């Protein structure tokens, strides 16, 4: 038996021994009931229920539903009496309806119809008492349903407008909203970018199933470069790296409950600190990380952390690592909108040719470019051409040829007289990607990464 046949036989034998649970369909229907309307990681789903146009400019005009909000309308706190610190969804300030509309479980195969976070149209009638959004504001299904009933009676109609909800959330969390302008869509469902008090960030939003009210699912600040949250028994370990010096304040709560006492630590710019925070592993939590900079500016990241989950992200900055297939959390194959969101900073079109579109982060870090080749709306190549960003083995622009050879002894050497390329194609998790160190006069002048074969493409963007 040759290798192909042996492999087929081995795979078939192992697979045939797997007997899935008989409760599969029940589990799926429960998940459908719980499902929220948002997108979380690159590379998870090919869902194509919405269409939108993503343009590689800082200000993105995107269509996310039949009534996309006007991106250019500047909303100031004074123009909308619903905004500002007095905005509250506390039950006492609202006209509480006496009943909540009855709801039915989601039936598999129900025609969901087009809807989305950017739409003010109601979703399908398939509302469900079992649906539990992973939301941070408002926090519970009961609260969302109460607000929905209020909107149906004409109270707080702004709750059906995702931009207004985003601004109200920022105000509720004590971030300045006057002069903030209207959060703009990032070109993917529910992702809105904002600038508050000179600090940028984005919020990920969802819409109540069967309703029109929107909620915040996640918030990130450009000030918080790296975050990793994991359970340590009944505590949470929260690793934070902030862009500037200041104080990091972390607190948690169960959805619908009060905030637990906060924990705080001073932090230097771009240095990691770990905070030990109350956070039982057995329950869903809302985790708030607030950075109060020495410059007086505030950044806020807030996340829903499911029971026993871990959460981590790294924004793009001068300390980012470029490795085969990715830089920080931006990966080859991501759409430009996803790359912008996960880079944590806006991108602007820069350079490029008829064959390629170049994207560069606005501001820091310098010398980073993402390329999408012709016919592709996805990041195909990542290039670093300035010192700062380094590879996983510590090589950056300016390192000598000898240093690259020492760090990557297995790399394919195509260097002659100090000019050429060293190509590293890892035989590990990142297999399928290459990292290329371009060498000129015996020094690294740029670092590239893309799929296997990139190093053989001399005229990539000609």
């Amino acid at each position, binding site marked *: 038996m040759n290798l192909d046949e042996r492999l087929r036989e081995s795979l078939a034998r192992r697979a045939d021994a797997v007997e*899935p649970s008989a409760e599969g369909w029940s589990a*799926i229907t429960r*998940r459908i009931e719980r499902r929220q309307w948002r997108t979380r990681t690159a590379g*998870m789903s*090919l869902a194509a*229920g919405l269409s939108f146009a993503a343009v590689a400019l800082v200000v993105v005009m995107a269509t996310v539903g039949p009534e996309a909000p006007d991106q250019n309308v500047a909303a100031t706190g004074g123009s909308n009496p619903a905004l500002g610190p007095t905005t509250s969804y506390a039950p006492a300030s609202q006209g509480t309806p006496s009943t909540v509309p009855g709801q039915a479980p989601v039936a598999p*195969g129900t*025609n969901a119809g087009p809807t989305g976070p950017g739409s003010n149209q109601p979703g399908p009638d398939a509302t469900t008492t079992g649906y539990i959004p992973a939301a941070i504001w408002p926090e519970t299904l009961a609260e969302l349903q109460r607000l929905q009933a209020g909107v149906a009676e004409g109270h707080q109609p702004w709750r059906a407008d995702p931009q207004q909800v985003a601004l109200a959330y920022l105000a509720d969390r004590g971030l300045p909203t006057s002069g903030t302008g209207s959060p703009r869509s990032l070109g993917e469902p529910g992702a809105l970018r904002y600038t508050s008090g000179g600090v940028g960030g984005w919020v990920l939003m969802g819409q109540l199933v069967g309703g029109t009210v929107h909620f915040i699912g996640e918030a990130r600040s450009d000030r918080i470069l790296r975050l990793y949250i994991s359970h340590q028994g009944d505590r949470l370990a929260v690793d934070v790296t902030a862009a500037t010096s200041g104080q990091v304040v972390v607190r948690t709560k169960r959805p619908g409950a009060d905030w637990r006492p906060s924990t705080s630590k001073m932090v230097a710019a771009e240095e990691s600190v770990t905070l030990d925070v109350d956070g039982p592993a057995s329950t869903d939590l809302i985790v708030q990380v607030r950075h109060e900079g020495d410059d007086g500016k505030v950044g806020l990241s807030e996340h829903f952390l499911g029971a026993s989950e871990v959460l981590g992200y790294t924004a793009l900055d001068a300390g980012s690592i470029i490795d085969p297939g990715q830089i920080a959390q931006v990966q080859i194959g991501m759409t430009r909108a996803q790359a912008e969101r996960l880079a944590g900073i806006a991108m602007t079109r820069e350079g490029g040719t008829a064959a390629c579109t170049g994207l560069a982060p606005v501001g820091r870090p310098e010398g980073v470019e993402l390329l999408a080749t012709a016919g592709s709306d996805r990041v195909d190549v990542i290039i670093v051409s300035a010192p700062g960003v380094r590879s996983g083995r510590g090589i950056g622009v300016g390192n000598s040829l000898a240093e690259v050879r020492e760090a990557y002894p297995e790399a394919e050497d195509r260097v002659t007289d100090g000019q050429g390329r060293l190509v590293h194609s890892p035989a590990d998790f990142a*297999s399928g990607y290459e990292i290329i160190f371009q060498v000129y006069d015996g020094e690294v002048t740029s670092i590239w990464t893309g799929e296997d074969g990139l190093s053989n493409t001399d005229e990539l963007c000609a």
Partner: protein
Amino acid sequence: MAAADERVDEDERALAGPTRPGSLADLYRERYVPMVRLAFLMVGSTTVAEDLVQDAFARMHRPWDTIEHPKAYLRTSVVNACRSHLRRLALERAYKRNPSVVAESVPAEADELFDTLAALPARQRAALVLRFYEDLSEADIAVALGCRPGTVKSLLHRGLAELRKVVEH
């Protein structure tokens, strides 16, 4: 991508019958068990495999009517979910916190070839499983993995080279 779409059409017809599953429940009846087995071959745990496949089904509920090729869509979704799961494990390991313990695989007689496959990088393993278990063409594997066919060739070549060391050992 037009050529890849045509191959997806051929693959759809080859999978089962001329008609598209009428509902998500129909797709479940037809493809749940094969997808759990495919996911198991990628992640090594039946529990994790079922979890990932159930999530893939749940994600198809809302856009169901707009999905042209549900079986291929489901397979790609499952493959991507498996890769994301493995990436999450790598993230945990990178931060050196208590990483999730990969659940034990289905007990079976010793199989050095399968054990070597299980130790391969995720994309190599995915390419080999899709080629030698699902019998996909390189073009279809490229669609499922979101990469170029040339990359698929490279993944298969390297993966087989590692397995060959075991066979020739």
